């Protein structure tokens, strides 16, 4: 369908001001936070479920692809319109529809920023637990599509554990409801299928979320190590001892150096690794738990372990963790965040191999990651404008995923597959496994309207 005609039809559905199609706009909606590029045919900004339904129905009838988009923060190319089509940007559907404290539920539109809901909940002493690094701007639609994680997911689970239901627009424009406000819904768990499907099966227009009371007490500790191995062993030992901290984060030497140069969080420059361990829950028993953790750290040759005594000290420790990406970003013009998961016990071994990959390609790699659930985030530093370096970055990224897979882990912890890691899917799944997923795609979107060319690699059927 030619673009002019498409725009004309879409304008009838959502109004002139909500359809973008200039060359400039097409360029601007061709990127996200990944290294990939595409070009849509036009961009539409719907204001309601009804409008989304009409847009998709039109696209289906015209045989045009549809790609949903929130803030475009995703790191695996999930929102790149690689095969053109209509990008549906949800910035206008950004209302919190309901906060039901007694029943511990919230209902939001897909364009709401994660932190906006958290701020709204704070006055009730409530919290929505998943905390992706991009939470101040990541939208719930994006969290739904990518099944986002974050530091606190070690204890509380990832997005799928906090989305109980959704209103979804299907490939032909039909609006359906999956799940609901109750914990266990009869019939197939379609919510479970849709969360993390990266916009390839349907588009969520309303989300029912689980919210929780804020924990009564929080305790944050910093453990400093002379070797990565000891830090890694500590992580396994804590979890192995039956303790589930709220967060268990690790920073390596290059990260520590960068953080200290830019924010002075109080990390020693000669350390090989630090752990940030946070407990939350009831005040009673927390001190005892903290002592147990300190004991475990000591058994694993910690150089020093200290607990934040005041809220200010706690904030300073977190400033070091939260500012880590920023600090690293100042070392080179660009960085690629890899996202892989390994069994906790394999952390030290895999980290050593990751650093070998860096040496092999002559690339600097810094590590700051969710150690508690074995979710690695090697940051490869480079200059995007240097094509040779960019090529090496892709190769190194893929090799790191292979390492994770070979160690019994997987190729994504929370960033999704998108455009970036399709061929790496075969590191962890057989063609038969992929075939089973393809059947799900065929059931939901037989005509490949939604986000084509994502997630699933081509296989010989």
């Amino acid at each position: 369908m030619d673009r002019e005609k498409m725009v004309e039809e879409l304008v009838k559905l959502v109004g002139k001001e909500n359809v973008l199609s200039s060359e400039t706009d097409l360029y601007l909606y061709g990127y996200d936070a990944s290294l990939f590029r595409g070009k849509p045919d036009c961009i539409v900004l719907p204001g309601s479920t009804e409008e989304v339904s009409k847009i998709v129905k039109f696209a289906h009838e015209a045989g045009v692809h549809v790609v949903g988009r929130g803030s475009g923060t995703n790191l695996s190319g999930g929102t790149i319109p690689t095969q053109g089509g209509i990008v549906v940007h949800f910035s206008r559907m950004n209302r919190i529809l309901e906060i039901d404290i007694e029943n511990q539920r919230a209902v939001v539109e897909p364009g709401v920023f994660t932190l906006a809901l958290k701020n709204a909940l704070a006055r009730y002493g409530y919290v929505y637990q998943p905390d992706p690094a991009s939470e101040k701007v990541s939208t719930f639609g994006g969290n739904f599509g990518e099944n986002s994680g974050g530091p606190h997911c070690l204890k509380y689970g990832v997005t799928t554990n906090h989305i109980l239901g959704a209103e979804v627009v299907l490939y032909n424009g039909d609006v359906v409801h999956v799940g609901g406000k109750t914990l266990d819904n009869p019939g197939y768990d379609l919510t479970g299928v849709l969360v993390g499907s990266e916009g390839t099966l349907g588009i969520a227009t309303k989300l029912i979320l689980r919210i929780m009371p804020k924990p009564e007490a929080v305790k944050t500790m910093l453990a400093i190590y002379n070797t990565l191995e000891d830090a890694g062993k500590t992580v396994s030992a804590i979890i192995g001892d039956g303790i589930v901290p709220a967060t268990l984060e690790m920073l390596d030497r290059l990260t520590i150096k960068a953080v200290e140069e830019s924010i002075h969080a109080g990390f020693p420059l000669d350390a090989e690794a630090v752990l940030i361990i946070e407990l939350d829950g009831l005040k009673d028993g927390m001190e005892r738990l903290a002592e147990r953790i300190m004991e475990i750290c000591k058994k694993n040759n910690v150089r020093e372990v200290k607990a934040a005594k005041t809220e200010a000290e706690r904030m300073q420790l977190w400033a070091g963790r939260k500012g880590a990406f920023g600090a690293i970003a100042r070392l080179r013009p660009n960085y690629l965040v890899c996202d892989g998961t390994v069994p906790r016990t394999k952390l030290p071994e895999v980290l050593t191999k990751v650093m070998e990959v860096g040496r092999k390609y002559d690339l600097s790699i810094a590590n700051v990651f969710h150690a508690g659930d074995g979710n690695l985030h090697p940051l490869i530093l480079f200059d995007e404008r240097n094509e040779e370096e960019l090529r090496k970055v892709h190769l190194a990224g893929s090799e790191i995923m292979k390492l994770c897979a070979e160690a019994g882990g997987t190729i994504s912890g929370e960033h999704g597959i998108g455009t970036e890691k399709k061929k790496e899917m075969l590191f962890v799944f057989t063609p038969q496994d992929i075939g089973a997923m393809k059947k799900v795609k065929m059931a939901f979107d037989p005509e490949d309207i939604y986000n084509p060319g994502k997630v699933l690699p081509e296989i010989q059927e």
Partner: protein
Amino acid sequence: MKQEELKTLLYDEIAKCNRCGFCLAHCPIYTIMGREWATPRGKNALVRAIIEGKIGWTPEIEDTLFRCTGCRLCTQTCFPAVETNQGVLAGRACLADMHQYPKIVDRVVEALENNFNISDEPNEDRTLWMDFLKNVPEHMYQKEKAEVVYFVGCVAAFFPLVQKIPQAFVQVLDKSKVDFTILGGEEWCCGFPLIQMGMEEKMQKLVEHNQEKVKQVSAKTVVFACPSCFHTWKEKYNTNAELLHSTQYMERLINEKKIVFNNGFNKTVTYHDPCDLGRNSKVFDPPRNILNAIPGLKLVEMANNRQLCNCCGGGGDLEMIDPELSAAIAERKIQEIQDTGAEVVVTSCQQCIRTISGYARKKEIDLKVMDITEVVLEAMGS
């Protein structure tokens, strides 16, 4: 500016943008518009695309680059601290070179060339704000020699809504027995609007004139109640005189016991950090120290304050270029002010006052907006 120069000056800076999108959460323009072109990320991407020859100077790029308040909250909250506003201003300079800019720009440039101020009035009228002041000394605050020059700025001199600032500040200086002068009709625009419009090369004449006048007065210090004049002097002028914002100078006068608060100020107030004073000049404490020194005054902070303070919507000539967008940003700002429960919002910038109280008036919102010089004057009493 030519495209080649844009590349030399800004390619490395703009290339630091990883497109992470974290700036979207903070940008006042995106918050209202909700479109990618409005984002700092988008602005970086477009400037970069132009440098790399992937896109031409489309009309949309003009719209985009002229919709930035220069608040720099994006840079403040950006991991690699990309100076997006520098790219925006350089982009505007390229557009200016090709005569591709909003029509209103020509009117302002003409006013500056003819009158040396941004209004349509002759420059002699810079002192008309004194008409409403009692006990003006014979020299009309214009002396041949003085320790201090008070640089009034165009907006405070010509726009009735904010003439209360020079009216209050000269009284504060008088009561504190400061040996000061204004430049009257010899004060020319500092050049800030030209920088914002991408015509920095046109400001040299203004700069030289103002520098010379300050020299003739033999002033050791130049004081500004306008954060943008202050910031422009700091960045673009070459003078031996000490440059201070009114808040810094009044803080000093309080410490020297030259400002004494006989009355106090029995109200709960919140303080709005003007972008050019706070984030862009890093003056955060002096205004707060002043307010906290006033007996009876209770200061409550807004949810976003200091480095994270939200722009009022009036920065970067936006009020002139897109008044509707500027007003929509002001509306959000007013909500944040009201959420504090404060009786008065105090700031230290005539443009912030214009944007905030302008919107409040239009919508009949009961909101008291004061410049910090007015609060100090009232608290000093007789």
